[in-house]
């Protein structure tokens, strides 16, 4: 018992200095406070935000910004909860597309058309395709600040050695994978399917390319979703075909591991990656490694636009409940600017959605090429987990995994998807 008291005391004493050091300051008298909530608690983004906020507050001593952040899935869950309450943050990050719509449906998101129109010099620099992702019925609800795209990255050296070219159609792509397999690349396509989002990124693109856009839009809407079109099974069959090139190991590793230990080492010549992953990829690549990229090939029988690029822009929204809307707008104008966009691309690798942010000094040549691909895309398709209800995409994710591990067929997965869609209709 004495020992126990002693230990408790020691533990308690040991935390006192930690408390003393950890006390954080709040806003001072007369300062305008902005509560800023985003989804990037990880470095390098977190450090970048800390530095940017410090800079902003030094330039604007009358503003105090409180920042909070949590990671992806938890962020989604939490922002859904608070956005409809009175605790809605003044400024928060959001994906575009259906997710943005869900935020707007709360009735708490500020319409920004006047702000865009009042300052054409600033707003003219923002990529219009990205703004489109935040525009609903002509009303703009968000300020995009990064854009992304998911494409097949390939190992240029291996392609040159075997005389391969970037495929444009599915048949060409499969032939290319077969050639690689015949040349002793046992897993020509690297992927880690432990992460369900990795499955969903694939399926989102495959569905977009395969299904009639009108049918797809109606099915993605929770109120009308049926998923009975026979093309869905065809789409999942393509997925099944693709997983046969990923090797048995794919279901046992995560996306990062696949990237770092299979694509970067040259073991697998192709991988489906986001432009935003370029910096992490650069960290693990050997010196002389050269890579190129091509958009997801077109299905011959596909009804969707093959020129689209999957990869929704992300941006910020302002609460219409905020007491200091002007301060919020000033802050976002400062943040979404060529200078800060350059910092974003240089430090974090995200492609800034501001014109002039990517220069030879701030961006790699590959990033410049990525920007070109984004600009040339016919439209930016949202990620599957931003496009439809969670009850549906979870089934797609689990089903996609089960197809890859050989435990389910495209038909059986679609039956489950239909049931899930019916349960929320």
């Amino acid at each position, binding site marked *: *018992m004495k*020992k*126990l008291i002693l*230990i*408790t005391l020691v*533990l*308690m004493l040991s*935390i006192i200095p*930690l*408390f003393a050091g*950890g006390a954080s300051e709040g806003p001072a008298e007369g300062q305008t406070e902005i509560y800023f909530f985003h989804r990037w*608690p*990880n*470095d390098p983004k977190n450090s970048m935000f800390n530095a940017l906020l410090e800079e902003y507050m030094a330039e604007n001593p009358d503003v105090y910004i409180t920042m*909070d*952040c*949590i*990671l992806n899935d*938890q962020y989604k*869950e*939490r922002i859904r*909860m608070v956005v409809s309450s009175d605790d809605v943050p003044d400024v928060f990050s959001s994906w575009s597309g259906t997710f943005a719509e869900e935020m707007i449906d709360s009735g708490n998101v500020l319409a920004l058309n006047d702000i865009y129109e009042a300052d054409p010099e600033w707003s003219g620099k923002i990529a219009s395709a990205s703004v489109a992702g935040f525009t609903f019925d002509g009303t703009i609800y968000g300020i995009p600040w990064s854009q992304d795209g998911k494409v097949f990255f390939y190992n240029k050296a291996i392609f040159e050695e075997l005389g391969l070219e970037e495929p444009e159609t599915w048949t060409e792509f499969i032939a290319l994978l077969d050639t690689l397999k015949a040349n002793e690349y046992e897993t020509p396509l690297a992927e880690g399917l432990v992460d369900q989002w990795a499955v969903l990124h694939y399926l989102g693109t495959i569905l977009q390319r395969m299904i009639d856009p009108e049918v797809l839009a109606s099915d993605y809407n929770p109120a009308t979703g049926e998923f009975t079109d026979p093309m869905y099974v065809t789409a999942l069959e393509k997925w099944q075909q693709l997983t046969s090139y990923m090797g048995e190991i794919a279901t046992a590793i995560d996306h*990062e591991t696949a990237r*770092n*230990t299979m694509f970067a080492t040259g073991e697998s010549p192709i991988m489906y990656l986001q432009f935003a992953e370029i910096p*992490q990829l650069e960290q*693990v690549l050997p010196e002389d490694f050269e890579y190129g990229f091509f958009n997801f090939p077109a299905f011959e029988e596909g009804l969707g636009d093959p020129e689209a690029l999957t990869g929704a822009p992300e941006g910020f929204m302002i609460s219409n409940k905020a007491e200091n809307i002007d301060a919020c707008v000033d802050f976002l104008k400062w943040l979404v600017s060529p200078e800060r966009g350059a910092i974003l691309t240089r430090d974090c690798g995200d492609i800034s959605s501001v014109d002039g942010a990517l220069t030879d000094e701030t961006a790699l040549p590959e990033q410049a090429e990525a920007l070109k691909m984004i600009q040339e895309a016919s439209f930016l398709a949202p990620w599957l987990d931003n496009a439809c209800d969670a009850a549906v995409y979870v089934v797609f994710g689990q089903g996609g995994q089960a197809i890859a591990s050989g435990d389910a067929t495209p038909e059986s997965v679609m039956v489950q998807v239909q049931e899930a869609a019916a349960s929320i209709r």
Partner: protein
Amino acid sequence: MKSKRIIPRSFSGILVFLFLIILVFLIIYPLFWIIISSFKDYQGIYQDVWGLPDEWHFENYTRAWDRGISQYFVNSIIVTIVTLVGVVFVASAASFGIVQLRGKLGNIVFLITMGCMLLSPQVCVLPLFMLLRSLGLNDTYFSMIFPYIAFRLPISIMLIRSFFVGISKELEEAAVIDGASLWTIFSRIYVPLSKPIISTVIIMTVYYAWNEFMFATILVDSSALRTIPVGLMVFRDGLMTEWGVVMAGMVISCIPLIVIYLFMSKSFIRGLTAGSVKG
């Protein structure tokens, strides 16, 4: 006794002994491997899984500490201590009340507390989440502390009550004649006499609160409030390939309980086996 030997003499005895040694190896080796690997960098772990580090990366520990473990550690300590104080105080008071109550009431109260033991925390987690939100307690330390206290109370009350029942009534009767209040009887007689059982409860509670995962992961969102078990998960996601640092974080998180165990393994084992219900 004849057998002073460490290794038994008979053939079957040697076989069993070898088997036990293999079991020991299965437990010790992975732990040993974690400690060794926590001093390596990514390449060192990936390319030479079994070997000793070429270069000892002690900075993995300072990096782990600075990159978030320190915050999780403090959170865990706060949550554990508040839970501990709450459980010990509330449970011993309730046990005292139950013992003192005359008539059926004491049994009813005891049954109400014991009834909670039929309930696994998993069943309550969804409504608890909604409840804490409507109480405005979500995303505070209390969203862990209150459920922890609530789910530790039944077993603690059961143990303390059965100890209180055995306390001799003579001292108490003498005190009553002197006009002592219930509070005096409780704080001057019962509690001081119950140190062994209270220390058992303390150990059970510390063990539970330090390692609890499900409530902590579901009921708390802010990174600033995460306790070690949940924090480690975030830590792993955030650090990606810096495995050495992740493992350093794992080692740090185990230290407090291991230290308590080494200091007082007897009472620790008594504490964890007393309830026969692991947290």
